[in-house]
């Protein structure tokens, strides 16, 4: 597959992800060859945009032959059947949480499909994302276990989750459905700065099989999808970028509230980055009410924290360092650092695999930092001393 073909496919996939957005011009019909289609279908599946692809095919911007259309329909049907399985899980858990008096909000996925998209079939999703209060987090972990879910990875040390953690993944082996249980919607420092209780206080509802289910209000939704786009996968997936533009256009956003949250929760840089990336990637204009966020001067601290997620250093411990800087108080900083450097063996085994020296393998990253620092110091000390005469 040549670079040109890949570019062509990439452009076609972007056009699908941007299909129907305000201000986006309908592209000329794209007729993929069989080889191009095979690549495209894999991307459509990976990006979970089969609904938007079906819509593009229906309206003609994606011109498929019968075989290609059958393959797309098969993929989409599978995605929709899975979405129903996930929604069954949401209903089961909602009943369980309501009985226990636990307040929760469904993040992304089903809550977006049923509210900000014109038809639920346009937004696929793979799992359940739930936000619960920090005080309920442990109890909910227990309830999920009783419902047959197995936690994928233990916490690094007892108490880590509720002090510093963002989310844990709980999968049910019998139905295959994964629940991402969030204590905060944000990653690292941003997760610590956000106030999840206020997000829960301002919850709204969407209806699933006649039952009201908690979700974030639209300002909270925008905040959440923006964090997901900027702080999640690198480079960002197309669906979170689409979600941003979709909720901006279709949501009932209290812009003043969002501006306050951005200021109080140090999210100005994240929102700016997310809005710019969504607009630039999908070639869709940022709606007028959101443009104010693009011209705000984000504080340096936020920009630095954001860079820890958008730069290459992320995978080399940058995110952990950024979080350490944001953890308030010396004792909490020490507890956070200790949990990362000397976690429980059970956590290490789950993380780096079984073996005789899991801690040593875990320390590769910080040892790498230290060696780089020492090498940098060496280089600096070898610089010739400035000539004082030149300064006169």
């Amino acid at each position, binding site marked *: 597959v040549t670079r040109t073909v890949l570019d062509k496919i990439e452009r076609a996939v972007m056009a699908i992800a941007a299909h129907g957005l305000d201000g986006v011009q309908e592209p000329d019909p794209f007729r993929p060859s069989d080889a191009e289609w095979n690549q495209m279908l894999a991307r459509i599946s990976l990006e979970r945009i089969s609904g938007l692809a079906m819509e593009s095919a229906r309206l003609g911007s994606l011109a498929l032959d019968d075989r290609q259309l059958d393959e797309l329909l098969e993929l989409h049907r599978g995605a*929709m059947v899975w979405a129903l399985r996930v929604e069954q899980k949401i209903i089961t858990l909602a009943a369980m949480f309501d009985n226990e008096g636990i307040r929760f909000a469904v993040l992304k996925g089903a809550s977006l499909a049923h509210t900000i998209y014109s038809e639920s079939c346009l937004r696929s999703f793979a799992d359940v994302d739930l936000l619960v209060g920090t005080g309920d987090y442990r109890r909910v972990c227990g309830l999920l276990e009783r419902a047959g879910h197995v936690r994928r990875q233990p916490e690094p040390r007892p108490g880590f989750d509720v002090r510093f953690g963002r989310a844990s993944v709980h999968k049910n082996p019998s139905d295959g459905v994964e629940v991402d249980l969030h204590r905060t919607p944000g990653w690292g420092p941003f997760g610590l700065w956000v106030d999840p209780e206020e997000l829960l206080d301002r919850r709204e509802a969407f209806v699933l*099989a006649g039952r009201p289910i908690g979700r974030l209000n639209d300002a909270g939704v925008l905040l959440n999808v923006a964090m997901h786009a900027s702080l999640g996968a690198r480079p960002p997936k197309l669906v979170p970028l689409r979600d941003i533009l979709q909720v901006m256009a279709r949501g009932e956003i209290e812009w003043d509230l969002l501006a306050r949250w951005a200021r109080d929760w140090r999210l100005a840089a994240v929102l700016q980055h997310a809005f710019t990336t969504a607009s630039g990637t999908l070639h869709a204009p940022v709606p007028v009410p959101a443009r104010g966020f693009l011209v705000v001067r984000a504080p340096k601290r936020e920009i630095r924290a954001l860079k820890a997620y958008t730069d290459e250093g992320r995978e080399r411990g940058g995110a952990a360092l950024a979080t350490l800087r944001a953890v308030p108080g010396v004792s909490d900083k020490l507890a956070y650092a200790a949990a990362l450097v000397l976690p429980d063996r059970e956590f290490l085994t789950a993380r780096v695999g079984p073996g005789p020296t899991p801690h040593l393998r875990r320390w590769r990253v910080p040892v790498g930092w230290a060696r780089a620092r020492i090498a940098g110091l060496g280089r600096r000390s070898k610089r010739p001393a400035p000539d004082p005469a030149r300064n006169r």
Partner: protein
Amino acid sequence: LWRRAGTDVVATLPDAKDVQELRGGAAAVWLGLDEPTNTAELTRLLAEVYTMDPAVIAGDVEVAVEKLMQVGLVVAS
């Protein structure tokens, strides 16, 4: 719980094991049941939408509604 998948529909109940795939006329019947109605009214509506003779599709509509009732996706009220 249901989704459109092209011209087909997939649907299930909150506690059901199976997901029903409704194709062709069955999908059209499901989409026509967006609001509560009776079989005669539904037949008239579908005949209008698909520009067909109500007498020709009446039998098929009745069979489809019955099948949807059997699997619990449609209930009589």
